[in-house]
């Protein structure tokens, strides 16, 4: 039977509020010998998802809460992050790599989450994101000639 370590926490909409949860997750990665690249990828996706929740979902209202759940096994990590905002339609986010969007100062967060995680999916209302990364996934590595 797969050993799954779970961590559930509710935090304020403060960009520093993620630190403790990330430290817990990092400890699991270290004990399960996840690679540096896995760790970097999940950290980036997590920070981007959390920033989206507190900035777009909660409009930086520090009192609003974000629910976070991690399920880590030696094979993969599952992350659920839920805000109390109205949600959004992720399909309306334009591709930040298109020439007309390259110089925009926002709009790269979800793109990076998708680039580094094997699965990024939202609930119907768009206020809960579920992300999965498998151990040693190749996500987040571009071709050398790009």
């Amino acid at each position: 039977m797969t050993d799954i370590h779970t961590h559930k926490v509710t935090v304020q909409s403060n960009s520093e509020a993620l630190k403790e949860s990330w430290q817990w997750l990092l400890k699991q990665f270290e004990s399960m010998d996840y690679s540096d690249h896995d760790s970097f990828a999940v950290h980036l996706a997590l920070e981007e998802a959390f920033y989206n929740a507190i900035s777009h979902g909660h409009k930086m209202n520090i009192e609003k809460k974000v629910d976070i759940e991690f399920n880590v096994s030696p094979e993969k990590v599952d992350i659920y992050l839920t805000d109390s905002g109205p949600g959004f339609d992720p399909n309306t986010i334009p591709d930040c790599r298109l020439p007309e969007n390259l110089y925009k100062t926002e709009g790269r967060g979800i793109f990076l989450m998708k680039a580094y995680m094997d699965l990024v999916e939202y609930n119907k209302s768009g206020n809960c994101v579920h992300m999965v990364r498998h151990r040693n996934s190749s996500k987040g590595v571009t071709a050398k000639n790009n």
Partner: protein
Amino acid sequence: MADICPRIKIEYQDEATIVEFTDDKILEEKDIRDLDKALSAIIGQATGINMILDFSNVKFLSSAVLGMLIRLSKRIYENEGQLALCGINPKIYEIFKITRLNKVFDIYKNIDAAIDRLAE
């Protein structure tokens, strides 16, 4: 070399303004806002500034930093200046490649290479 805020050091060399990020993470929204202000103060109304941003110490950043760099580059280019980035570690360079910002910014291996290019 003078400390102008807790998170950057500034040095002038061969007509270039070299800004070194001293933290290994640039992440918090407030930190990025402070950085934006500090860098904007350096640029000020200067015409033709040659700015080099040295990322040698930086091991992690978020997409909000990319947005700040784009804002900064617009201000510099509007004032006929030049901006170069250097010392970016492979993991962070991957973020630039994935978002295609490696085609937007002039990125060099180290400060010397950036100075050589800006001097041309």
